[in-house]
């Protein structure tokens, strides 16, 4: 009968995983380009039970893990800053950090560094890099929906959006940048998405949905906890059996 104790405990830790994801999502409810986490629950192995004429099976509980991110579009907020870019559709900006690490991001809060390069909020350059010539101020830069960057009549380059075969397997390492992995596939040029100049994509976290999920998760956690109590009570009853 100890199996039930462990399966209830496994259920509690699965709900804990979901609560952690909710906590992370809520903390990032205002993070530009953030996408909420997708949590997958599954049941565990079933053990055959064959005891005192009862021949059946009992499951070993549940497990949960983050399996990727929501792909829904965050709302686009106008900022008026000419180097704020929002992606409408599927795709990522490709950036390269000072240490040479290439990453993907939907956070289009760009600026200009000391040498005129367009860089992300963390100072990572775009891939391929785009540099404003001396004397061109960010206010004169026009970025077309296809990513072509112009200043007056001069074309300065094109911001190329990329995507991967499996966005769920991109590795997040903080600061809003995702790293391609073997499981996600290499970044490929993508078409169809549009760049919106002067706007940012807000976090796609839906707070009311997260709150509702938090309540149901807490209740499910509580129920597994009362299953543990009941199992414990049964053991205590069995323990009271003694020769009279």
């Amino acid at each position, binding site marked *: *009968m100890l199996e039930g104790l462990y399966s*209830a405990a496994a259920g509690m830790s699965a709900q804990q995983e979901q609560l952690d994801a909710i906590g992370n999502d809520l903390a990032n409810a205002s993070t530009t380009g953030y996408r909420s986490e997708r949590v997958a629950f599954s*049941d565990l192995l079933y053990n055959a039970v064959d005891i005192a*004429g009862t021949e059946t099976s*009992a499951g070993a509980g549940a497990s949960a893990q983050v399996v*990727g991110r929501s792909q829904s579009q965050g709302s686009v907020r106008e900022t008026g800053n000419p180097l704020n870019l929002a992606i409408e559709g599927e795709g990522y900006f490709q950036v390269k950090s000072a240490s040479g690490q290439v990453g993907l991001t939907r956070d289009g809060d760009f600026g200009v560094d000391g040498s005129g390069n367009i860089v992300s909020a963390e100072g990572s350059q775009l891939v391929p890099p785009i540099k404003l010539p001396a004397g061109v101020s960010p206010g004169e830069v026009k970025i077309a929906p296809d990513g072509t960057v112009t200043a007056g009549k001069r074309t300065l380059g094109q911001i190329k959006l990329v995507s991967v075969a499996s966005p*769920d397997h991109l590795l997040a390492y903080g600061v809003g940048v995702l790293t391609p992995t073997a499981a996600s596939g290499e970044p490929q040029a993508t078409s169809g998405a549009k760049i919106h100049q002067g706007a940012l994509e807000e976090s796609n976290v839906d707070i009311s949905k997260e709150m509702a999920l938090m309540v149901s998760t807490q209740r499910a956690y509580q129920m597994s906890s009362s299953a543990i109590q009941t199992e414990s009570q*049964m053991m205590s009853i069995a323990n009271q059996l003694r020769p009279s």
Partner: protein
Amino acid sequence: MRHGLPKESPSAADHLGDMDLGLYVAASGMVAEQVRQDQLSNDLANASTPGYKPDESTQHSFGDVLLANTSGGPDVGSIDAGVALGKTYTNMTPGTMQETGEPLDFAISGSGFFAVKTAQGVRYTRDGQFTTSAQGVLTDTNGDPVLDQSGAEVKVGAKGQVSPGALGLFEVPGAVKQGENLYAGTSSGKPSGSVRQGALEGSGVDAAKIMVEMITSLRSFQSGQQAIQSIGQTLQEAASQVGSLNAGGG
């Protein structure tokens, strides 16, 4: 078929007195409740598992065993001792739909299963929370490819989209749970369900019902314990007082 103790062993009634038989009946009832409690704990643990189907067990009460033996069976006198959990069956009633809006979340409305190709062979699932592999193939969250109606892998389009019609839907009579949201079985016949995109099928666990069943089971377990206590006391009196010169205060 699960009436009491296994048939191979001699019936408890053959060599035990009625009193001892009662002990065995009560003890087997307690064991059955323990197993039922384990199943209920598992159901509650899966209150959030998409497409999960709860286990239901019938219990053969002592009275059922008696009835089973009077209706065309051997005489009531030769029953086996005990109570056992009857066959466990999985309640396949479709769960509620939960809208997620995710392009790779699918739910089956009505009957049927999705098929995935695992290392152990084709398995079936009602959990449509899918993802993509680096090769652009639709997979379940364990990385096993999802199959279309002809048994081929499903390709994900360039925009990360899959049309719900591309997914195979199979009827699997008597599907057996394997864990990891998978079922084993052989597909046959045509399912009545249809695939919906952007939604997941909620767990079929009715929490209130399971909590009530948990309390009922706990109390039955307790009655079993008390029956054993009483029979134990009676036996103790029989052993120590019957035949004693002072028995009955005489």
